[in-house]
């Protein structure tokens, strides 16, 4: 047994097989462009498992036999080979998009030659993730990995939905599993179901966003089930495997400092375009048609404001719509700002005009700063790295901020030739204040801005009114004639809302592990590791005095922990042309979640004190939850290699889970993979590398905790009577494990001197026996019941293409394309059920899984259509007051209106290097998919959008009534309405069975040949929610975004000279700079509410934020 150089990097456990070695070779590996040393380069003796890794200074040392060939490979560089001719061998590496001939990290941190792997793995370097930072690092992966779909919810620090290869679980978790240095970490989304369905609440993000991009060395994405069988069930959604930076042996210390600042501004193309012609109100029914001799059409309130005995004209300020009287600068009226004695405008009338500043002026400039310092070092027998990062950001909403501090330590020590211990420890503290409220809630300013608003308001006047008084002087006060004229009706002053009704939250988290590696003999290693991820979090929400909602306070405390104990034996041995590599291991996992949520009841006694004890009435019983999950797993993996071109892997795992009935709680699942490096068998110059791969895998899965037995909910006592109620979700004591079966085929090739590379995958994955709370007829006594049912299939293709059109010493151009096309199909549900409701959202819309359809269809009221597909319209009644008339859409059956899944999505990255300059631009795109907009559903009805005003095709204001002559007399009526085209007119005839008869229908004209008009004269118009059709508000979600732009200059070392600085990089970065194309006019098609299974619903969507920043990295 020979001595080994134990340069240990935690997640990179390389395997040594020392035979009789002749000489020691040392050298330095440097970057061909910058001349800087390159650390962590794998140095391998070709044809053997003998390997070493370069240290921080790029130095390596390896004992090799005579005439050995060394292969140098590292992430992001083209591999180099060099023949040993002496005791030293220095090489320089050129950057490359060649990612095939590399070492990749797989389950349990086992590093393997990528060529031997029979499933899809795609890696992203740490620099790619931290280059253009987002508060949620997951967002930085968007467009960079094929098969991974990332959707950002749009609020500061909000959650990111990360789904790999489609939604495979009907109601369970579909988020990828995050593993950091072998520690599976919680990525819980704790947003309430109200929040996720758009009924209000805050998006508190997802837990994996605690990961600090500055500490990331590399990210490996394991996409399929075969890649992940060793992680157990949770990995069937794919794994995002993160390896953090480690220390390395060197003289002295390595110090790196990074600092960046980014400013963000709202993107107007993702916001409402307001009409500016009509004022406050819903229609003509507030006061008399004529007030004090002025024709107001009943759209203004009559009130004697100045007490002179003559009626004055006032806005109906208590209403939250813009279907009021046409603006007229010559008309004096009283508005919201006339109501408040605190204001100089009190009792003053003003001109009836649109607000000088619309809600676009509400959005502020967001500022993000990031500062980090890392120190690493090491000696022959030990290494360490410590780092600290502070991240701060403010949102575009006033009074919103988030900060995060990450501290990390990693170290390793060789206790003997055979025994190494290592540890990583991370402490993360994140806190936020004034998160931006989401969904249909007064705490989300967009609910008002997009749906319920008076365009006569000057937003900056709302701001100064709040700032001058600290009070809720709302544009939406009840108004003149009401019992309480100055109290807010539906909406608070948005500044009062931001500064007084704010939330705060914080999370303290510790993640770490202790690991022992013991080299039993030259082919057998033992690894024992204990890891923990635990955090406690608090969320506090406030409602101040003087607002629309009852004053109150809610707090939620939650503690979450996961521990894993892994014991793994690893064998690694060659037999002639055959190589064997395998593991036998066990995993004991325990999860525990404990939470409590409590709120005040009926108000607060003392204003401004947010404490449960300050509750007006005794607080209701808090909601408490506690659950634990235990899984004991045993697994084995065997990998057989023949020569350098054929590899077969077999894995098997057995889990025993606490969440299943004892009789059914043990389940086994196997996988098999094949990799054939056919380029080794060919002798074609153009082909540098070629591999075909195939795999088959099964994965079992357990149930959610506490799904086997019913328990009663205890309610708040009614007087002295305690209350209990049966659960609405019926448990099932007979559940069996879920099963997922997947197959995958792949082809990887590098061509033409590594100028062209691609990786193609086809996959097909079917999950069955899904455990889900199926919606059942409530006449059973339950609303949901846990069942084993449901089959869902996802099949798709992924392509990752790398091109290097130009490669020279000074200039290089790389193109990277990622493309994903996933097709999901819900095959069957429970007992022939026709649908599985994922969520009921507002607007009569449900997001559903329906057999034969893709997962996540948008279901709701459709247009009734004629045989040619034209929406059918019919005569609308004219009701009293002269409104109505014209035609309206005929509502059809409820039907599938859209689908949350894109047809395809992908990214296109161009990067350029010229000497010390690098530049890159990432386009991120999605084609197809759709979403329902509650914003236009309501906003069209309330007359907020530009589309509800202006003139029709005949040059008349569309808001004029269509027919009623009474309104024409005054010059502001008649011949109005929206001219309808592409529609089919039904005259109301029915056939003998009483069914609608469309055989006489005419397109775009009525029975008399006259053009068709839809009434737009008040809120019950032809487009909005009241008379319209849900389908009208389902939008195409396609987009092309300029996601990231970066320009970096690395100061050459000769310029740094004697400063002691070893490296200095300066970069300009931009993120979400533009949406180059999208189908919907008023929002970011990507905007959502929360990560999770409920997508495709926009309610009070936030505009997207363009970020531009500068960043400096220093190394000493």
């Amino acid at each position: 047994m020979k001595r080994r150089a134990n340069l240990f990097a935690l997640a990179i456990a390389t395997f040594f097989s020392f035979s009789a070695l002749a000489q020691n070779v040392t050298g330095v590996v440097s970057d061909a462009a910058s001349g800087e040393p390159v650390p962590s380069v794998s140095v391998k003796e070709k044809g053997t498992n003998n390997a070493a890794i370069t240290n921080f200074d790029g130095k390596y040392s390896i004992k090799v036999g005579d005439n050995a060939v060394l292969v140098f490979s590292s992430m992001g560089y083209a591999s180099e080979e060099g023949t040993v001719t002496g005791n030293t061998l220095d090489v320089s590496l050129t950057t490359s998009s060649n990612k095939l001939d590399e070492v990749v990290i797989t389950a349990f941190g086992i590093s393997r030659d990528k060529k031997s792997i029979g499933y899809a793995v795609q890696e992203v370097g740490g620099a790619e993730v931290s280059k253009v930072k987002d508060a949620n690092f997951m967002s930085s992966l968007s467009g960079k990995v094929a098969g991974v779909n990332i959707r950002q919810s749009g609020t500061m620090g909000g959650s990111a939905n990360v789904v790999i290869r489609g939604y495979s679980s009907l109601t369970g978790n579909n988020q990828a599993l995050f593993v950091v240095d072998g520690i599976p970490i919680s990525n819980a989304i704790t947003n309430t179901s109200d929040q996720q369905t758009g009924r209000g609440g805050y998006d508190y993000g997802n837990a994996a966003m605690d990961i600090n991009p500055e500490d990331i060395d590399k990210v490996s994405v394991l996409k399929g089930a075969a890649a992940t069988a060793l992680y157990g069930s949770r990995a069937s959604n794919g794994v995002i495997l993160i390896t953090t930076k480690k220390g390395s042996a060197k003289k002295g210390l390595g110090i790196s400092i990074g600092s960046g600042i980014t400013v963000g501004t709202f993107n107007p193309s993702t916001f409402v375009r307001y009409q500016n012609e009509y004022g406050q109100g819903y229609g003509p029914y507030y006061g008399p048609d004529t007030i004090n001799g002025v024709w107001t059409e009943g759209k203004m309130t009559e009130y004697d404001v100045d007490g002179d005995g003559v009626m004055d004209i006032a806005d109906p300020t208590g209403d939250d719509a813009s279907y009021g009287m046409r603006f007229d600068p010559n008309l004096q009226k009283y508005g919201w700002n006339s109501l408040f004695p605190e204001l100089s405008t009190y009792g003053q009338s003003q001109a009836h005009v649109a607000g000088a500043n619309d809600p676009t002026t509400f959005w502020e400039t967001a500022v993000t700063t990031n500062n980090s310092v890392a120190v690493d070092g090491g000696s022959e027998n030990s290494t360490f790295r410590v780092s600290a990062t502070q991240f701060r950001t403010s949102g575009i909403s006033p009074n919103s901020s988030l900060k995060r501090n990450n501290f990390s330590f990693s170290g390793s020590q060789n206790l003997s030739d055979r025994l190494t211990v290592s540890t990583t420890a991370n402490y993360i503290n994140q806190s936020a204040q004034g998160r931006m409220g989401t969904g249909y809630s007064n705490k989300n300013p967009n609910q008002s801005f997009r749906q319920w608003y008076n365009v006569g308001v000057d937003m900056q006047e709302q701001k100064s009114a709040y700032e001058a008084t600290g009070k809720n002087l709302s544009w939406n006060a009840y108004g003149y004639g009401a019992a309480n004229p100055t109290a807010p009706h539906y909406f608070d002053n948005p500044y009062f809302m931001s500064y007084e009704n704010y939330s705060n939250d914080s999370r303290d988290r510790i993640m770490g592990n202790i690991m022992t590696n013991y080299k039993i003999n030259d082919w057998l290693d033992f690894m024992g590791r204990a890891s923990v991820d635990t955090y406690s979090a608090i969320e506090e929400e406030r409602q101040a005095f003087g607002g629309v909602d009852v004053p109150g306070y809610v707090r939620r405390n939650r503690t979450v922990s996961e521990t894993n104990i892994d014991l793994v034996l690893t064998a690694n041995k060659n037999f002639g042309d055959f190589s064997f590599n395998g593991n036998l291991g066990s995993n004991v996992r325990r999860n525990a979640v404990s939470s409590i949520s409590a709120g005040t009841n009926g108000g607060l006694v003392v204003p401004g004190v947010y404490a449960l004890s300050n509750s007006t009435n005794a607080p209701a019983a808090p909601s408490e939850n506690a659950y634990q999950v235990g899984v004991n797993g045993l697994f084995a993996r065997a990998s057989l290699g023949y020569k350098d071109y054929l590899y077969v892997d077999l894995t098997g795992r057995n889990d025993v889970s606490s969440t299943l009935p004892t009789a059914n709680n043990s389940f086994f699942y196997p996988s098999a993979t094949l990799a054939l490096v056919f380029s080794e068998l060919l002798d074609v110059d153009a082909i540098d590398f070629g591999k075909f791969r195939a795999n088959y895998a099964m994965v079992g899965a357990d149930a959610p905790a506490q799904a086997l037995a019913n328990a009663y909910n205890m309610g708040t006592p009614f007087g002295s009577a305690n209350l209990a109620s049966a659960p609405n979700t019926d448990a099932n004591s007979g559940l069996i494990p879920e099963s997922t079966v997947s197959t995958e085929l792949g082809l990887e090739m590098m061509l033409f001197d590594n100028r062209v590379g691609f990786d193609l995958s086809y996959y097909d994955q079917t999950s069955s026996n899904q455990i889900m709370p199926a919606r059942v007829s409530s006449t059973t006594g339950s609303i949901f019941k846990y069942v084993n049912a449901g089959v869902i299939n996802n099949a798709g293709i992924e392509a990752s293409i790398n091109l290097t059109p130009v490669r020279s010493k000074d200039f290089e151009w790389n193109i990277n394309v990622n493309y994903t096309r996933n097709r999901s199909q819900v095959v069957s549900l429970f007992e022939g059920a026709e649908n599985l409701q994922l969520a009921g959202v507002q607007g009569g819309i449900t997001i559903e899984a329906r057999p034969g359809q893709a997962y996540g269809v948008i279901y709701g009221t459709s247009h009734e259509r004629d045989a040619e597909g034209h929406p059918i319209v019919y005569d609308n009644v004219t009701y009293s007051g002269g409104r109505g008339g014209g035609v309206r859409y005929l509502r059809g059956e409820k039907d599938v209106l859209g689908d949350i899944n894109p047809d395809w999505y992908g990214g296109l990255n161009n990067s350029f290097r010229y000497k010390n300059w690098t530049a890159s631009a990432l386009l991120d795109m999605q084609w197809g998919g759709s979403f329902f907009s509650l914003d236009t559903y309501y906003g069209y009805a309330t007359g907020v959008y530009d589309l509800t005003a202006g003139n029709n095709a005949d040059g008349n204001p569309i808001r004029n009534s269509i027919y009623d002559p009474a309104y024409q007399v005054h010059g502001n009526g008649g011949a109005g309405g929206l001219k309808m085209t592409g529609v089919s007119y039904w005259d109301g005839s029915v056939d003998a069975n009483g069914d609608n008869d469309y055989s006489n229908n005419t397109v775009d004209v009525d029975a008399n040949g006259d053009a068709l008009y839809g009434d737009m004269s008040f809120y019950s118009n032809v487009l909005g929610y009241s008379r319209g059709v849900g389908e009208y508000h389902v939008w195409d979600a396609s987009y092309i975004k300029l996601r990231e732009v970066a320009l970096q200059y690395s100061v050459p070392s000769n310029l740094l000279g004697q400063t002691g600085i070893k490296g200095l990089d300066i970069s300009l970065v931009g993120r979400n700079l533009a949406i180059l194309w999208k189908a919907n006019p008023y929002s970011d098609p990507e905007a959502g509410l929360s990560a999770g299974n409920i997508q495709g619903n926009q309610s009070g969507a936030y505009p997207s934020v363009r970020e531009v920043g500068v960043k400096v990295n220093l190394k000493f």
Partner: protein
Amino acid sequence: MKKLFTAASAALLIASCTSDLSSLNENSKAPVQVPAGTLIANATVDLSDYLASVNVNLNNFTLWSQHWTQTTYTDESNYDYNQRDVNGNTFDELYANVLRDLQDAKGLIEADDGLLPQVQANQLAIADLLQVYTYHVLVDIHNDVPYSEALGDVEADPTLITPKYDAASGIYTNLVARILAAHGTLAGDNGLGSFDLIYGGDANAWKKFAASLALKLAVRAADVDPTAQTVAETAAGAGVFTSSADNASMSYTSSPPHTNPLWESLVQSGRTDFCASNTIAGIMNGLVDPRRGVYFRNLDSLGDLMGGVYGQNSAYNTHSQPGDAVEAPTLAAHLMSYSEVSFLLADAAQRGWNVVGTAGEHYANGVNASMAQWGVSGTDAATYLAQTTVAYDASVWKERIGVQKWLAMYMRGNEAYNTVRTYDYPAMNIADVAQRPVPNRMSYGVDEYSLNTTNVEAANGGSDDDTDKVFWDVN
């Protein structure tokens, strides 16, 4: 090294053992068994909340009966109940909350060996009466509903996951039988004590409730059920409500969450969604009804109601609004009242059925009880009753009973709507925007069509139009 290898092997073995993991899955925060009274009390609250609610997502009948109309958002006044899934929500609330809790309570009571036999019988009877009451509410809304196969043990019989719809008339017959059985059982104390939120543990009070409920179902089915007369006469003879002290009502608390749900919708929400409709304004103004100032506020200078055109937008400030009494958080909600029972007796007497007293007497009792309930003085009530437009007149009995019962059922939307359908009085207005008359029933929710398709499609002989009539609405 050998030691380590041995230790590792041992550890692998330990992990492979199936230690008793199942205890990890127990719920430490929620009980698997509770006192039956907690479930009965909860079901009572849920049922009462449903009946008293004017939440547009749950109960639209105060609008359908045209007591109120909506000010700004007039969709429900125009009978658009599908957009908000009001029908689906009604099923969820009444089946999965009210009926389910009562069903579980019955199981727990039956399994409780510690109860005295009479107490056990009383508790079962009360839980059953509340279920009967709930089912009759469902039938009156929809006509056919799942009954015989509802609330079943799905794990024992998987076909019960899709309960069939039973004929409404058959359900009524069965409900009456259950009432009479419960009536025969009830005696003494029911042992529920404060869990009995309606009668505080008094089984005899429940006995009167049972008789009154039987009378109600019989009178409702008078035009279609040949046994109705016998049932009504039996019930009346067995002892129905004799004063408002017998009312089956829930006294709400002054603080949330157990206030009258009206308070939440009208006061706590700060919304101004409802005002008097021109339908009730026309009738009450015409009758110079002394309840106008209690039912509503913001009357005109003559003391008349200012009603909004039904179904059309109406400014809140310039119309009469739900009255201060209605806005009280403690306002009691009635499941059944003496006033209502009096009108039932008036109807029965008018039909010549053998109930003690004349139609006119019962009619006057019904009016007077309502007046007293809303704080109107006896003098004012007498003056009101003395008017020729109000005084009982057998030649127009349907109009008299219809109008006065409809007025007395203020804030009992379901029952006011039933009254209109029963008597076709008072005349309702056409909803202005929808331009359609009051629906005759509510059609089934969309969830039933996707989850219980075959059965719901067969209900009501295959027709689910809301212009169809429920089985008892034939004249």
